[in-house]
C-alpha cells in the first residue's frame, strides 16, 4: 500500500513537471517552477546527507581496528577541518581559499596530470587489445589532432592544420550529433519507465 503511494507521488509530480515543460499555461508553468524549486532544495539536502554518510562510514572504519583506518582518519580530518574553517569564515574567505589553493587544487590537478599517462598508456595498448578498424581510426585521428594541437616546433605540414579543423567541423560533429540523439532517445525511455512506474528506485518495489 505504502509503495503504491510512493509510486503515485512519483508519477503524479513527474507528469505535472513534464507538462510544465511543454505547455505554457501559467498555472502549469508556475507549478513546475515551485516543484522544481523544492526538488532543488532536496537535492542540496541529499548532498548534505551524502557528506554525513561519508562521515559515518569512515568514522566506523577509523574506530574499528583495520589496516585502512589511517585513510579514514585522513578523510575525516580533511572533512572536519574544511567544514570548520570554510563553514566558520565563509567559503570565499582567505583561510578557505588557502585550503582550496594548497590542498584541493594540487591534489586534483595532479590526478588530472596522472590522467595523461593513463590515457597514453591506454592509447598504446588499444591496438593490441582490440585490433580492428575502429581502433585504427581512433588512434590515427587522436594522433593527428594531438600533433596539430601543439605548436609542433613551428613545423608546418601542409594540409594537416586544415584537416584538423575539418575533422572538428564535419565528421566529429556528425558522430557527436548521432551519439547525442541516440542518448536523448535513451534518456526519454529511462525517464518514461519511471513515469510509467516500471522502474521504482525509490524503494517502491
Amino acid at each position, binding site marked *: 500500500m505504502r509503495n503504491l503511494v510512493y509510486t503515485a507521488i512519483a508519477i503524479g509530480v513527474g507528469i505535472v513537471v513534464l507538462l510544465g515543460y511543454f505547455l505554457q499555461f501559467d498555472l502549469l508553468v508556475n507549478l513546475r517552477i515551485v516543484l522544481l524549486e523544492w526538488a532543488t532544495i532536496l537535492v542540496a539536502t541529499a548532498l548534505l546527507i551524502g557528506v554525513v554518510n561519508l562521515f559515518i562510514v569512515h568514522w566506523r572504519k577509523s574506530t574499528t581496528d583495520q589496516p585502512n583506518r589511517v585513510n579514514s582518519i585522513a578523510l575525516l580530518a580533511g572533512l572536519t577541518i574544511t567544514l570548520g574553517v570554510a563553514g566558520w569564515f565563509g567559503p570565499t574567505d582567505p583561510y578557505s581559499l588557502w585550503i582550496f589553493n594548497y590542498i584541493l587544487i594540487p591534489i586534483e590537478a595532479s590526478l588530472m596530470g596522472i590522467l595523461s599517462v593513463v590515457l597514453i598508456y591506454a592509447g598504446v595498448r588499444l591496438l593490441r587489445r582490440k585490433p580492428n578498424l575502429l581502433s585504427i581510426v581512433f588512434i590515427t585521428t587522436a594522433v593527428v589532432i594531438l600533433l596539430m594541437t601543439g605548436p609542433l616546433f613551428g613545423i608546418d605540414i601542409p594540409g594537416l592544420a586544415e584537416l584538423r579543423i575539418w575533422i572538428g567541423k564535419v565528421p566529429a560533429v556528425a558522430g557527436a550529433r548521432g551519439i547525442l540523439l541516440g542518448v536523448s532517445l535513451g534518456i526519454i525511455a529511462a525517464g518514461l519507465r519511471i513515469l*510509467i512506474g516500471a522502474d521504482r528506485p525509490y524503494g517502491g518495489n
Partner: protein
Amino acid sequence: MDSLNILGLIFVLVFFGLMIAASVVLRQREGRKLREIPAFGRLRRAIGLAVEAGSRLHISLGRGQLLSPQSAIGYVGLSILDRIARSTSISDRPPVATAGEGSLGILSQDTQQDAAKYLGVESDPMRGRITGLTPYSYAAGTLSFIQEEDIGANLLIGSFGNEVALITDAAERRDGMTLGGTDNLTGQAVLFATAQEPLIGEETYAGGAYLGAGPMHIASLYAQDILRWVLIGLIVMGAILKLFSVL
C-alpha cells in the same frame, strides 16, 4: 518556439504509447530478436565468474546531477544494480554500488534494500556507498575503493567525465573486468580507449533490457528503434525542404 514545444510533447506521447503497445505485444508473443552486444554477454559471464570466485561485483553509478538529463543514466545503472543484486545476493559476496552524488547514493541503498527484502536476507547499508561528492573526488574514492575491496568486475554505468580513466586504470591494476558506458561524450571517448568492454552512447541505456530487468526495458528498446527512424526521416525531410527553402 511554442510549436516546437508541442512537437516535443507529441514526440514524448508517441514514445509513451509505443512503449505501452510494445510491452503488451511482448506479453503475447516472442518479440523481435535484439542484436548482440558482446559487452553484455561478457558481463553475464563476469557475474558468474565473480560469484564462483567469491569476489565482489562493483556497480559505479557515476555523479550525474538528479535534476538534469544526466539522471537518466543513473536510473539505468540503478535498474541494473537491482537486477544483479536480486540474482547474486545468494552468493556470500553481494554486489556493492558506489555513487558520486548524494541522492544517487541514497537511491542505490534503497535499491539494495529492496533486493535484500525480495530475497529475504539482511541488507547491509554499506553496500551502497557514496565515495565522493565532486567528479574527481568521486573518482578518487572509487579508485581506492576498488583497491581496498576484492572486486571481480566493475560496471561503470552512470554519468562520468574524463576522470573515469582513473577508475578503469585502478580496476585494470587489480586485474578486474571493466564494463563502462556513460552519457557524457568525453567520458565515452575515454571509456572507448580504457574500458575492457566499452558501451557506446545509446547502448548503455539498453543495459536493463539486455540483463533482463523487465519487459518494459525491452519494450522501450522497440519504441526507441521506431522513433530512431522517425528522427532520421525528419532530419532528411527537413534537410531537403530547407535545401529548397520551403521551411
